[in-house]
């Protein structure tokens, strides 16, 4: 899952980035409204965290421009103003949720999780493909009730695959959503990590969930 954080206050941007990275999300940070809009339009982000008071271009304008350009990624706005009309204006301009500064890290992380869940149609917050289950809140992964321990990167890769279950995901797509901006797509890191995952999830199982689509990439499906 790739997240864009547009926030001009360097320290705020820094701890938000670290908190999200600890949740295994790939995070890009931008400190200017206009540049943030450019990034959001160019890359494909799964979620955007947007401060309202920004140099270059006000957050509200960035949000309106994004929605006008048909960017449908959920947007979480951060505002230092607790006034009602700021929240209402933000939500009306197409934001999906808001947080008032100062906010709790756990709340930020929970709201990000909830917003990412929205697209997949899952109800209880648990991603399920066949007998494989992933709980983003507890970061617990089980197969047939059996708990599976994953590293942060493996977890991020699996979450991305499960959220897009049934779809064929190319290597550039996986790189963009799971790894950071500066990731070199010519290496075989993705294949290596997919193999790690296969070892932990599919080994010894009768039904293999992770499948290779020759010439394209990978897909994860139950049948």
């Amino acid at each position: 899952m790739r997240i864009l954080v547009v926030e001009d206050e360097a320290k705020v941007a820094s701890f938000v980035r670290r908190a999200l990275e600890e949740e295994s999300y790939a995070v890009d940070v931008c400190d200017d409204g206009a540049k943030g809009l450019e990034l959001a339009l160019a890359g494909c982000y799964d979620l955007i965290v947007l401060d309202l008071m920004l140099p270059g271009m006000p957050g509200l304008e960035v949000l309106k421009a994004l929605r006008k350009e048909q960017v449908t990624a959920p947007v979480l706005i951060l505002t230092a103003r607790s006034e009602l009309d700021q929240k209402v204006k933000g939500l009306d301009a197409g934001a999906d949720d808001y947080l008032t500064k100062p906010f709790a890290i756990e709340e930020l992380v929970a709201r990000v999780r909830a917003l990412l869940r929205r697209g997949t149609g899952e109800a209880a917050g648990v991603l399920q493909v066949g007998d494989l289950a992933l709980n983003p809140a507890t970061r617990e992964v089980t197969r047939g009730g059996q708990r599976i321990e994953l590293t942060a990167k493996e977890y991020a890769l699996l979450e991305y695959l499960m959220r897009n279950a049934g779809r064929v995901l190319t290597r550039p797509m996986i790189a963009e959503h799971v790894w950071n901006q500066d990731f070199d797509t010519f290496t075989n890191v993705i294949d290596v990590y997919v193999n790690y995952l296969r070892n932990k999830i599919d080994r010894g199982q009768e039904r293999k969930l992770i499948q290779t689509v020759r010439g394209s990439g990978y897909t994860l499906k139950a049948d």
Partner: protein
Amino acid sequence: MPLRLRLTLWYGTALALILVILGGALYAMLAHGLRDQIDRSLAETAAVAVRALEQHRVGAFLPFADLAAEFPELAVLDKSFQIFSPAGKVTIQSPNLGRLDIPLSRTALESALNGRATYESARFPGGSSYRLLSVPILLDGVLANIVQVGTSLRPVEEMLQRLLLVLLVSLPVALAVALGGGWFLAGRALRPVDAITLAAQRLAEGDLTQRLAVSQAQDEIGRLSATFNAMIARLETSFRQVRQFSADASHELRTPLTVMKGETELALRRARPAEDYRLVLESNLEEIDRMVRIVDELLFLSRADLGEVRIESRPVRLDALVEDVQRQAVVLGQERDVQVMMGTMEPVTVQGDELRLRELLLNLVDNAVKYSRPGEKVELALARDGATARLSVADRGIGISAEAQGRIFDRFYRTDEARAHAPKGTGLGLAICKWIVEAHHGRIEVQSAVGQGAKFTVILPVVTP
């Protein structure tokens, strides 16, 4: 008591008083005039009778018919007519007296004996009032006869009664109509006052968008409305400023709080190396310092607003102060590789508070260093220009755009460039500078262009020796 009722009552009372006085005067004048007229006509009649009797020396009692035959002019008199002997006995009586017996009064008789005429009013049984004139007729200086002419006062009384009736009926009616009209007019005149009251009520409820329709007429209410509107406009502006100020203040204080809360919570999520904790604590300390600065500066400004900041008034050698600050600023500049230099200097003494002036100068120099890029220069200069001292601090740093120049002295205002270049600023320094300069009866100006530096000039009145 409502003003409308009070106005109407005052007006009504005044009007009633005027009407009563007017009615009374009219009645009295008419009554007096009518009586005068009667007296005059009685006198004329008596004169006719006396002339006739004097010519013919009537002495003995005669029936009126004979007398009338002899003096036809007496027969056509419309008044009653009696002639008395000097003893007061009736000798001749006009027939129109009928059965009415009018004796000669004692006063009239005595006056006649002294040769004087007498006017009398008399009321007789049956209710008829009479006006009588008794005139003595003297023959060779001796009272021969007394002629008494009389006329009924009934027509006059009837007329006066009618007048009284008309007055008694029309006065209250006129008063009632006038009161009604007054009530209506007072209501009309006071309607704008009600509108103002209503607007003031909404104002008290916090609706500052209220404005009164100002009538074109330059009357009292029009002026009141205009004054009222001007007052609301000022209130609205200052309310907006206060709201903007507290919103800005809360935003500026929230940012360090957000950083401290976020970094601390993040650090506590899991066990980390000691170095990580140290970094968080250092960062928190920075934020605490920032908040302390904001709170100190806010406190200063709010005390300044309330007039609680004392400004000393002593002679201050500005050139010595500038040199002193420059020495301090050189150290400040070394940290950022900015050279702080002295330009032209002239000896100038101003009247003021040395501590505040030092704070002002330090603030300006600190800004100049902060917004300079490494390797650039900051120049301090002091010149005397007639009765004013011109103290300038010039840098070649990031500069200020023309549209921002008008706002940089506003509390918490910072340009995006300034925020990006020096994130630790509070946005209050220049507001404090402006306050200090104005407290010294001076002014502060800025010349700048984006990317080409800024020159702040403080102009202070000089003490003339």
